[in-house]
């Protein structure tokens, strides 16, 4: 968004003219809108909507059409609510080659697909700042894997996937030198590169690996989408700054009237990789995986990647000229049309895959970009949508032959026909819309009932909350000829892209509790009988259990200042929605939330002697307040023996 605002100046005059179209906010949601989105408690929403959290590094999950927030999934950011990134088990998830990085900028999401349709298995998420790709399991809504991407900066055009989730891509926004050589910034053209990383995904486990990276000229990759059907073998990336500017980009990256859509034949790339056409280079990166059996994450540093240079791999990459600064690069359900969105152009170019193939066959090139053939614009073009609005950004499809494009500058959604490229309808947004989302709108089978617009600015939409206002989303009913705005609701973070799928696809697969008998955590206390405290040197391991409504042990003595105390808390419950929490006074770490049947560990290093109460933080029963205990911390060298128990009192001890 920030970058987009830069071009405001450029098109300010026209934008002002356009803005008179905007209706007042008061008239926005009309008629029977409220009843269309009302979902009574106890009734389920029809869709799960996964929304990127932007700079909060998380993913939020909303129900549609109600717009109710159901969950926040921590992915790239530590999360005090449940101890993600703080617990000993999850710390490794945030490991990188630059140490633990507890934050990121999360922009896009993609749901896994089989045969071009959503399969409800995984959700992939990108991190821009420290380039990473994450995989979230949709049976538990937990982050299971995070893969760091080397040779990349500003991992923006990701994590888009191919039709059968063969690959997840990660495209570079900021070009940087490969490796770690020290070069002048002014040597951009020689030394800087963008890369498109292809991450393979194991069909069964979902495990990710960087299969290969394609080295591209220095420029900014923005968005991407995989082909489907006839264009199955291809991936398309939009680019900007093909001027290769490295300073004052708002002017210097706006010199030419066109940038490129980068078309990559990933099937060919795969063959070249197998045939040994690539070059293995040293490139350390972290690969973090969470093991569901031991409930513990491990981080492995991998050391090399395979680079494919288009020079050595003919027919692998082509450039398609696209009107200035394309953002979206969206493929229609048939796989034939590729919609670019020239943000700085007052039209939407639509390319034809069959024409692209023919142009490649006929060698209809107009030159090359650093050795990569450039197709002639006209030879790849199906047609242009004229005067769609200002600042076209991103397009989704309804599966009925219609496309919907967001207009950042004129703050509207524009519906147009793929067949004749005529504008059919327009609806205002409030305001500065970014991405759009139709459930399955980027698959072969969109569910074209709803469309959500994710807005950057809200001004007069919600109660003021200081200088910063809530970001917002707007839900439109698109089942009729005219789009109807039916709901307007605030969101977390800055929503970018989102995905939604039918609730029926994942609802019945939800894990309700973890089977305690399958808990393979190395510090599990299998039943209260096995609760204990073990000292080894200055390390103290507390094997603790939690069940409504007590912790065992709940009295611990014989711990000294400076000891490293590990509370391994096993939740013995076997019932849905009965997590227990665990917090200890003055712990500079965080608290835990332990799901039924799970074991989670909180580290505590007491710095002062004293009595430290600990307790369950999540209201679990009528006697929740009673779910507590005491840790006694004695001075270093004190002669207090290690002692622990539950239910022991001075009287019962004396009686023995």
């Amino acid at each position: 968004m920030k970058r987009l605002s830069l071009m405001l100046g450029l098109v300010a005059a026209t934008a002002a003219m356009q803005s008179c179209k905007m209706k007042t906010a008061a008239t926005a949601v009309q008629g029977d809108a409220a009843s269309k989105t009302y979902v009574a408690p106890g009734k389920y929403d029809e869709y799960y909507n996964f929304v990127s959290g932007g700079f909060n590094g998380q993913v939020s999950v909303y129900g549609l059409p109600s717009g109710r927030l159901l969950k926040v999934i921590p992915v790239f950011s530590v999360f005090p609510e449940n101890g993600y990134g703080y617990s000993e088990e999850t710390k490794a998830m945030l490991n990188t080659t630059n140490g633990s990085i507890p934050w990121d900028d999360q922009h896009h999401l993609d749901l896994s697909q089989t045969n071009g349709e959503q399969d409800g298995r995984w959700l992939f998420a990108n991190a821009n700042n420290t380039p990473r790709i994450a995989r979230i399991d949709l049976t538990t809504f937990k982050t299971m894997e995070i893969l760091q991407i080397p040779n990349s900066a500003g991992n923006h055009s990701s994590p888009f996937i191919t039709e059968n989730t063969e690959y997840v891509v990660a495209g570079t926004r900021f070009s940087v030198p490969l490796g770690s050589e020290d070069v002048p910034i002014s040597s951009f053209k020689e030394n800087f590169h963008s890369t498109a990383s292809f991450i393979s995904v194991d069909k069964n486990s979902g495990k990710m690996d960087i299969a290969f990276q394609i080295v591209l000229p220095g420029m900014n990759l923005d968005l991407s989408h995989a082909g489907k059907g006839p264009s199955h073998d291809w991936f398309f990336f939009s680019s900007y700054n093909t001027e290769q500017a490295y300073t004052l980009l708002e002017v210097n990256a706006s010199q030419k009237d066109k940038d490129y859509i980068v078309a990559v034949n990933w099937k060919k790339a795969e063959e070249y990789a197998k045939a040994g056409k690539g070059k293995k280079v040293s490139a350390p990166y972290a690969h973090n995986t969470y093991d569901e059996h031991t409930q513990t994450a491990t981080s492995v540093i991998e050391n090399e990647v395979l680079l494919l240079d288009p020079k050595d791999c003919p027919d692998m990459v082509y450039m398609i000229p696209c009107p200035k600064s394309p953002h979206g690069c969206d493929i229609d359900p048939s796989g034939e049309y590729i919609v670019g969105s020239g943000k700085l152009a007052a039209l939407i170019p639509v390319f034809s895959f069959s024409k692209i193939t023919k142009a490649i066959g006929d060698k209809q090139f107009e030159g090359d970009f650093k050795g990569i053939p450039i197709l002639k614009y006209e030879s790849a073009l199906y047609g242009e949508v004229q005067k769609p609005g200002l600042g076209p950004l991103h397009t989704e499809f309804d599966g009925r032959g219609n496309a919907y494009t967001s207009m950042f500058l004129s703050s509207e959604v524009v519906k147009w026909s793929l067949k004749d490229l005529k504008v059919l309808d327009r609806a205002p947004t409030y305001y500065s819309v970014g991405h759009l989302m139709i459930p399955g709108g980027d698959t072969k089978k969109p569910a074209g009932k709803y469309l959500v617009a994710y807005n950057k600015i809200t001004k007069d939409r919600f109660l003021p909350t200081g200088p910063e206002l809530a970001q917002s989303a707007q839900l439109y009913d698109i089942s009729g000829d005219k789009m109807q705005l039916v709901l307007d609701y605030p969101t977390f973070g800055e929503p970018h892209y989102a995905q939604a799928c039918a609730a029926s696809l994942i609802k019945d697969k939800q894990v309700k509790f973890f089977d305690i008998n399958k808990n393979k955590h190395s510090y599990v206390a299998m039943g209260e009988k096995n609760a204990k405290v073990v000292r080894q040197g200055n390390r103290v391991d507390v094997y603790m259990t939690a069940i409504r409504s007590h912790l065992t042990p709940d009295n611990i003595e014989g711990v000294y200042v400076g000891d490293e105390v590990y509370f391994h808390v096993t939740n013995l419950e076997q019932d849905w929605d009965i997590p227990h929490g665990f917090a200890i006074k003055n712990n500079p770490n965080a608290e835990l939330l332990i799901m039924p049947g799970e074991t989670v560990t909180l580290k505590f290093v007491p710095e002062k002697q004293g009595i430290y109460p600990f307790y369950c933080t999540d209201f679990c029963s009528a006697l929740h307040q009673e779910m507590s205990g005491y840790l006694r911390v004695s001075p270093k060298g004190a002669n207090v023996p290690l002692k622990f128990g539950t239910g022991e009192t001075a009287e019962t001890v004396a009686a023995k």
Partner: protein
Amino acid sequence: MKKQAMFLTAIAAVALLVYSCGSGTPPPAADAPAADSSMTAPAQASSQTPTDETKGMGKFAEVKLTDPLDQTMVTSGKSTYEVKCAACHKLSGEKLVGPGWKGVTERRKPEWIMNFVTNTDEMIDKDPAAQAMLQECMVRMPNQHLTDDEARHLLEYMRANDGKK
């Protein structure tokens, strides 16, 4: 979130009073969101509910006891007890979170016990004896999702604990 659980408990205490006056107020679980299929599932099971109300409600209408005790079941029941039950139930008659187990096989029919440990939520909501226990303990017994086998083995362990041979 599971705040529901604690409210249920609180509501239960009040509702129980009303319910016992025969006002026809539905038991609390009927108001609970249908979200929890573990709560709604037992409704089907209760179609086979034994007619004898001292047997509770659930899928066990007739439990065949062994004589002598099946020692394999006793051993398996013991390990289930240790992982899933011991946190709240002593083997003596002493109440911890829940009642002590001594004598439970004398107080309750085997079917009642099997139904209670497998169909916990419905039993707590509807069975008079279970409701009386809730008023005493003030914590709903967690549904520990025992399999039918685990429940049967546990029963055998309870019988051994009560001195059956």
